[in-house]
């Protein structure tokens, strides 16, 4: 990158000051306000707010559902990316474009549809509910809708990696007598791992904060199907003098979790770029 080390081009002051002011107003000040508000609570108040039985159940569900959904997304995403890159079939370009639909579809629509599909008389629920699979107003419903939202991240991070894979390594493995499965496990999968992990982490991070779709499908029962984001909203709406500080305290816990994820994702992306 032999770029302008000396600031020859015009507009440095203008663009950098606009960028900094914009980011301060929209990102830094609001985030700071959130942390300051949480810090106004004493340690005991903070602990009482973030560590109630209801809050613990909400964290467990949020993390558990996001983790499970990201794992399923990784498998489904790998499968879809593999088929889209390696095989030919009619309608391939349409399927490829459709992978982006969950990015483009408002989450509220996803929630509305999923809540309707898996109820007892829904299109898919009529087959699943008799088998005891409750895909609506349950924890499973949350996982399902998070897979819908998460799997495109995995497909889109893996596709370029799969396309750039060195064919010679595979051919060499085959020539040396490796079976196709051995080649996949020992040669292809290790090369895909950084991309797969990045996609997994992106899906997980998105699942942690997801609200719009989950609110429709889960039923939002405290201790059972209530996620952390919903708990924040209900605390906020309680309107007790301290309730919005408690909401902020729970939000801070979520914020810390998402920043940890951001760091992990950045590390993974840097590593996959180097690899």
């Amino acid at each position: 990158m032999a770029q302008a080390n000396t600031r020859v081009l015009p507009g440095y002051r203008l663009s950098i000051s606009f960028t900094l002011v914009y980011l301060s107003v929209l990102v830094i000040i609001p985030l700071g306000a959130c942390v300051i508000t949480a810090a106004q609570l004493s340690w005991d108040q903070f602990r009482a707010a973030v560590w109630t039985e209801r809050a613990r159940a909400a964290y467990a569900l949020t993390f558990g559902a996001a983790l499970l959904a990201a794992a399923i997304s990784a498998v489904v995403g790998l499968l879809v990316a593999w088929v889209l890159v390696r095989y030919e079939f009619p309608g391939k370009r349409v399927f490829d474009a459709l992978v982006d639909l969950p990015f483009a579809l408002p989450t509220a629509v996803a929630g509305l549809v999923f809540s309707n599909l898996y109820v007892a008389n829904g299109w898919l629920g009529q087959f699943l509910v008799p088998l005891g699979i409750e895909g609506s107003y349950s924890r499973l419903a949350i996982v399902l809708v998070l897979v819908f939202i998460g799997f495109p991240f995995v497909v889109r991070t893996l596709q370029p990696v799969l396309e750039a894979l060195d064919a010679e390594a595979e051919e060499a493995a085959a020539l040396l007598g490796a079976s196709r499965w051995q080649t996949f496990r020992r040669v292809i999968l290790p090369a895909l791992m950084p991309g797969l992990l990045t996609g997994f982490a992106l899906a997980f991070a998105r699942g942690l904060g997801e609200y719009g779709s989950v609110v429709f499908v889960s039923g939002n029962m405290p201790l059972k199907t209530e996620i952390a984001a919903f708990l924040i909203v209900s605390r906020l709406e309680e309107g007790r003098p301290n309730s919005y500080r408690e909401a902020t305290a729970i939000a801070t816990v979520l914020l810390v979790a998402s920043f940890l994820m951001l760091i992990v994702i950045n590390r993974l992306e840097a590593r996959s770029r180097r690899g």
Partner: protein
Amino acid sequence: MTTPAAIPDLLPTAPGAGGAGAPTRQSPIANRKSQDPLWVRVTLTALALGCMTVLVIVPVVSVFYEALSDGLGTYWKTLTADPDTRHSVLLTLTVAPLAVLCNLVFGVAAAWAITRFRFRGRTLLVTLIDVPFSVSPVVAGLMFVILFGLQGFFGPWLRANGLQVLFTVPGLVLATTFVTLPFVARELIPVMEAIGPDEELAALSLGASGRQIFWRVTLPNIKWGLLYGIILCNARAMGEFGAVYVVSGRVAGETCTMPLQVEMLFNEFNTPGAFALASVLTMLAVVTLLLKVWVEGRKKQDSPQRHESHTKEHKEE
């Protein structure tokens, strides 16, 4: 990677431009394909298409099926008769473009600063732009409640001056802008990084002013990347739920955007109304996808070698 026959519309000038990478990449692909036995290929393809069908196709089809189940006439009436629904459409068409416009200006400025100059804290700035992606939309909304709510930092001052941000259009725009902040910048930074400053430096040495450099050199080079960012930003802005849910107060006919109105109707057990409005949002999503595919094609056609290694999104083939 399809046979050339499948992509003639995308690469009409293929010999000169697209030909550079194609021949070297096609033969190994052909070899690889022969490596998986037929039954593996068929099984995996069937599994993948099955997953896609259950996860994506069935839901989309069912939106339109539910919306149109009582006929087109009823559908149209459900959609247009309710004043709150009509208002929500107008509100979304106000809020989303405003948020996109803010982030468009920001994206261009940030990409210019980051890709054309070296300064301390540059990497930190790039990370900071990504922050809204990893903040839960509900938390984003909450941040603005903390700032502008009655008990919040600026609440008392706003009240004393007769101003209100929460539960108003500016509040909705603010929350939507935060959530969609990274889209344009994230799209432009790799594009401008790949193009490099050479053409702009040449223009400068020929005596072009800053404005001329931007409009005549930079903008033509980045226009497809820019459009791509705008499309993604707009789709997310129109569909944003969590953040606007918190700052809007959800007053039907006043601060309910389309997604919020869908939830409102759903909670009132007005399923036909909810699905009718959801079908409009789904159509917008499908239009977004079509535009996206088109722009991706144009982007590659314009400069196939430039963007190849940088675009994080998928390639067309």
